[in-house]
């Protein structure tokens, strides 16, 4: 049975050209970029080339890119870095209720240390209201953090608008762009962000590498203290193969972004339409139009997500769910609850995220396989009966 992978938002397979580009740096070109001999300088050159590529693609300067171990580190770096470096100016940070844990958890950490955090609500589609951001700003506000697009429901936030407000109010603005980088166009000046977190493995690059864009002049405390790497902002010997792979992945993504986004939007539409048509009592979560080209998130009523996932997995189809049963905290997805979904509907959520290898046949396969799974589970569900 050919397996169908529809969990690209979790991670993507590494592009073969990325692997090829990385290989020399796992073999002969092994030098430490901090060494002044030729071995080191070869590695250094490769890193700087990747930095240049990435900077150019997001409209940044080379020295505004700091490589990290991934998106989570980049978010932590941005949030704690701004908090620690600007404590004397204020202790208030504004975010919203559907951020990734990589943003929420460092904020909670700061709250325990005396910072104040405002979690703005979102509307039924997961949209943050820019005017709500404006109203929340006080004299103490040092940072606004709003994700570019949500990883669960795919909603794309009005970042440029919030960016204008942040600039007007003189507050730093951070966005977690892990889900959008390489998938939709990003220019830091158009978005008006001061900090932007990205990760390689969501765009067919390797795991364990990411970057933080830091606008020149932004006061950020270093994330790691040690050597002089990354202009003293992030000590530690660079992940040379990873960084090279990241650069290559960005290049490929840039070339293919337009056509790929168009292709995925069509497939996405087909999947959403098919699901709504073939299954009763099902609803789309997230924004109908302002959403990532590859994201489908639905709530199937009266059934639980993990049992749907297990059944799909038996058919070779990989997806994900916001159900409490499948999370180690046994809490349903905070994103779905923030949309105002009742507990049972968060329970019955399914996310399919499409990517490079996704074909029409695969979408058709899901549409064939899922309705009988839902019917079977509904026949066991005590919720269905109590409605009738």
């Amino acid at each position, binding site marked *: 049975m050919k397996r169908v992978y529809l969990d690209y938002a979790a991670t993507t397979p590494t592009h073969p050209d990325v692997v090829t580009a990385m290989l020399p740096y796992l073999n002969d070109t092994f030098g430490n970029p901090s060494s002044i001999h030729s071995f080191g300088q070869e590695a250094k050159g490769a890193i700087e080339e990747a930095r240049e590529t990435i900077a150019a693609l997001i409209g940044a300067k080379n020295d505004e890119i700091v490589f990290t171990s991934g998106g989570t580190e980049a978010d932590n770096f941005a949030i704690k870095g701004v908090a620690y470096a600007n404590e004397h100016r204020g202790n208030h940070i504004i975010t919203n209720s559907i951020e990734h844990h990589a943003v929420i958890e460092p904020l909670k950490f700061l709250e325990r240390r005396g910072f104040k955090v405002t979690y703005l609500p979102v509307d039924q589609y997961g949209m943050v209201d820019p005017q709500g951001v404006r109203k929340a700003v006080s004299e103490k506000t040092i940072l606004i953090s709003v994700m570019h697009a949500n990883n669960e429901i795919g909603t794309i936030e009005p970042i440029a608008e919030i960016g204008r407000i942040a600039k007007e109010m003189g507050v730093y603005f951070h966005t977690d762009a892990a889900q959008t980088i390489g998938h939709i166009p990003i220019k830091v000046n158009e978005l008006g962000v001061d900090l932007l977190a990205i990760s390689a493995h969501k765009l067919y690059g390797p795991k364990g590498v990411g970057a933080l864009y830091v606008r020149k002049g932004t006061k950020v405390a270093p994330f790691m203290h040690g050597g002089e790497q990354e202009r003293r902002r992030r000590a530690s010997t660079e992940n040379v193969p990873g960084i090279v792979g990241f650069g290559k992945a960005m290049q490929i993504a840039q070339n293919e972004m337009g056509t790929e986004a168009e292709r995925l939007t069509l497939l996405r539409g087909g999947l959403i339409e098919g699901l709504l048509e073939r299954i009763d009592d099902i609803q789309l979560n997230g924004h109908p139009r302002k959403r990532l080209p590859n994201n489908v998130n639905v709530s199937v009523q009266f059934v639980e997500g993990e049992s749907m996932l297990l059944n799909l997995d038996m058919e070779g189809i990989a997806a994900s769910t916001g159900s409490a*049963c499948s999370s180690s905290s046994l809490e349903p997805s905070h994103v779905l609850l923030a949309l105002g979904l009742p507990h049972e509907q968060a329970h019955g959520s399914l996310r399919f995220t499409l990517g490079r290898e996704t074909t029409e046949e695969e979408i058709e396969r899901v549409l064939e396989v899922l309705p009988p799974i839902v019917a079977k589970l509904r026949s066991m569900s005590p919720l269905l009966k109590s409605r009738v």
Partner: protein
Amino acid sequence: MAPNIRSLYSEKVMEHFKNPRNVGEIENPDGTGHVGNPVCGDIMELYIRVNDGVITDAKFKTFGCGAAIATSSMVTEMVKGKTIEEALEISNHAVAEALDGLPPIKMHCSVLAEEALKSAIDDYLNNSQGMDLESE
């Protein structure tokens, strides 16, 4: 095949998940248990038919994860043919064991199955108060 989410669960669990026994309701049951899982919010209903103090039939409906479905299925199998006293002895550990074990994070689902059974038996005892059972 490579490991996957199914390898979270034993073969027995997967077998009961794929082919759950005793799904459905009993018409005019002698006892009904309806319990919600305080941990993750799932729901289980269990129905029993009792003749002369012996459980002759049991059925369930469950809204929950793979482990919840498998434990519901297993507990309905285990109670059939047992006296009320014997059925009350069935613990969530016994159900989990009969399924060749559950991952630690899923043990609470087997607690739900035990509670559904207890609640169905309580319901039966209430319904038949003083009829055919002495109280202890």
